[in-house]
Each structure stands twice: as structure tokens, then as C-alpha cells.
């Protein structure tokens, strides 16, 4: 299984990467798109006014960008249609599935904890404003 962990493999020569296959280009585009969404999530985390909108940015941006980057990796590693490539693809899809399940759940749990703690959302509705976000007690 050591082929999965090429962390210390020597860096690829410049001369080798002469031409990118179509799959690799697709994968890199997806990964770049994921990075863009990460940037958006980070900006949102800093710029949004209250807890809920900030969590919204972090939760959605994180999930989508992780998925995009992982799918990009899957395409990049899957350029030779070998058995090992299929195995790797399967594992990456496992991770994608895991993130799709856990990331929204953790965002939801955090939001709920904040709501029960009585954090008030920023709103224009005067009726909501008076009542506040938490209805605990």
C-alpha cells in the first residue's frame, strides 16, 4: 500500500511534465475552483455580521471546496486506467462521502449550540429583534 503515501518521493523533474492530459487539466480546474470557494469561505468568515451568517459561509464553503478539491485529486490521479487508479478513486470517493455527511452535521450542531446559548441573529424584523434568537426558558 505504500504507493498511497508518496510524501517523500523525489519531486518530479521539470522535463517530465511536458504535457498535461485532459483529465489532469479537468482535475486542476476543479481543485482551483475549490481553492476559490475556500477563499470565499474565509472572506465570509471575517466579513459577515453575526454568528449564523458566519457559520453559513464556513459550512457551505468548506464542504463544497473540500469536495471539489478531492474530486480534482481523483481526476488527477486517475490518468492511467489501472487497477490501482480505480482503488485510489474508490478511496477518494469514500472520503468525499464522509465529508458530505460530517461537515454539514458539524455545522448544524454548532449552529444549534449557538442558538440554544442565546446568540441573537442580526435581523431587520423588529418583532424578531425584540424576542431574540433563543427561546430557552
Amino acid at each position, binding site marked *: *500500500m*505504500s504507493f498511497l503515501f508518496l510524501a517523500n518521493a523525489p519531486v518530479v523533474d521539470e522535463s517530465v511534465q511536458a504535457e498535461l492530459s485532459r483529465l489532469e487539466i479537468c482535475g486542476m480546474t476543479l481543485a482551483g475552483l475549490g481553492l476559490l470557494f475556500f477563499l470565499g469561505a474565509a472572506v465570509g468568515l471575517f466579513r459577515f455580521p453575526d454568528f449564523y451568517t458566519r457559520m453559513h459561509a464556513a459550512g457551505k464553503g468548506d464542504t463544497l471546496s473540500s469536495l471539489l478539491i478531492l474530486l480534482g485529486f481523483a481526476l488527477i490521479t486517475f490518468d492511467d486506467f489501472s487497477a490501482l487508479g480505480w482503488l485510489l478513486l474508490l478511496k477518494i470517493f469514500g472520503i468525499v462521502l*464522509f465529508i458530505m*455527511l*460530517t461537515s454539514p*452535521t458539524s455545522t*448544524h450542531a454548532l449552529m444549534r449550540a449557538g442558538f440554544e446559548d442565546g446568540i441573537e441573529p442580526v435581523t431587520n424584523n423588529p418583532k424578531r429583534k425584540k424576542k431574540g434568537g433563543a427561546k430557552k426558558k
Partner: protein
Amino acid sequence: MRKLAVAVVVLTGGLLLYAATDFAAWGDPESPASDSDVSKHFIAETGVDTEVPNMVTAVLADYRGFDTMFETVVIFIAGIAILAILKLTGKDATKTPGKRKDEVDDAPDLIVTHTVRLLVPIIQLFAFYVLAHGHVSPGGGFQGGVIMGASFILVALAWDLPRAMDRLSVDRAILLAGVGILIYAGIGLLAMFLGGEFLDYAELSTIFPVSREMARYHAMLGVEIGVAFTVTTVMFAIYASLSSKGRLEGGL
């Protein structure tokens, strides 16, 4: 106190940095640590002696098996110690502690519980995979055990502690931790009765129809299972005690 701390830190830092200049250069293959006969021997001979491709597992469970056994004992002792420190006894145990103000008494969250219900079997399956596949990929008893214990902790976090304690009560956890060490020591003793030394797994080939190398391979798996038992149960016991102030009820 702060001034004393700064003085000590500066002194130690100076000494360490002074020593750091004498270290071998970063990643030097000729450094004394990498070039010693011991390390070279492990890299060269592990595959011949044990048929295990992952050298770390082989060195952990076979060459340094005695060390690992007592590391497991240390974890077991930690589990017992936490119960001894935190568990309420005598007068305190009988009186029911009042609920604290900040204690969570809401119903468990629907979305979280459903996700956890979906994930826990996968996590436990993955723990078994990590445990069993530790010979050819990163993994082994410690990692698999921690992941397994984490799955129980996840149940306790998503619902509440009693729900997790239904699956694995703390008393049973400590019992199973002992069983893990018994598995480990038992394999060692079996090898001893078969004529070898303590934890000399190769001797097991006299009663099992495998070669000496494969005997070591399979005995390592048995030993890792013992480690996983102890680590799983002790991790959960520590969590259960810590999160409930030793009351083993209510809790986080």
C-alpha cells in the same frame, strides 16, 4: 515565578540551541541515528525475519514486543487510576448529585444522531481494517484501538453517556482492558511453553501449520488485537469518567 520561568527557559534554550549546532544536518542519510547498525538491521532484515512489509509494526510488536507490552500495561494502569481518582465512593456515591445549571438536558439532536447512527458502523469497520491491515499499511493496534474507542465516545457525545454505557459499561471496559493484556502476555507465555523465550513468536510454528516467519506474522496480529482491546476500553473509560465527574451518569 514568571521571572524564574524566563530564566530557566532562556538557559535551557541556550543549551539546546548550542547542542542543536552539533546535530547531523537535516535529513542526512549518514547521520548517526540513521547509519547505526541497529536501524540498518531493522530495515534490512525485518522482511526476512517476519514477512511483515511494515517495518514499524514489526519492530513494535516483535523486536520490541516486551516494551510494547508494558506500554499497554501503562495504559491499563492509567484507566484504573482515573477510576480510582474520580469515582465517588462511600457517602458521596449514595447521595444523588443535583443537576448543574449548565447541564444539557435537551433531547438529542435529530440530525446529529441520525448522522452518527449512519457513521458509527463505518467507523468501527474502519477500526477493524486499521487493526488488521497494520502489517502492510500504516496502522495497528494502537491506532485501531483509538478509533474504536472514539466511536464509543461519539455515541456518548451524540446521545448521552448512559446510551454509550449500555454498549460498554465502565466496569466491563476495565475487564476487557485486562483481557487485552492477557491476550498479549498469553501469546508470549505460549511461545515460552513451546520452548522459546518470552514473546518469541517463531516457536508458535510448532503447533500451527505455518512457517516460522508466518508464525511471527500471525502472532503479531494477535498481539495487536490485545493492544487494541486495552486501548479501546481505556479510552472510553477515561472519557466516561472525565465527562461525568466520576459519577458515570449524566455527563457531557
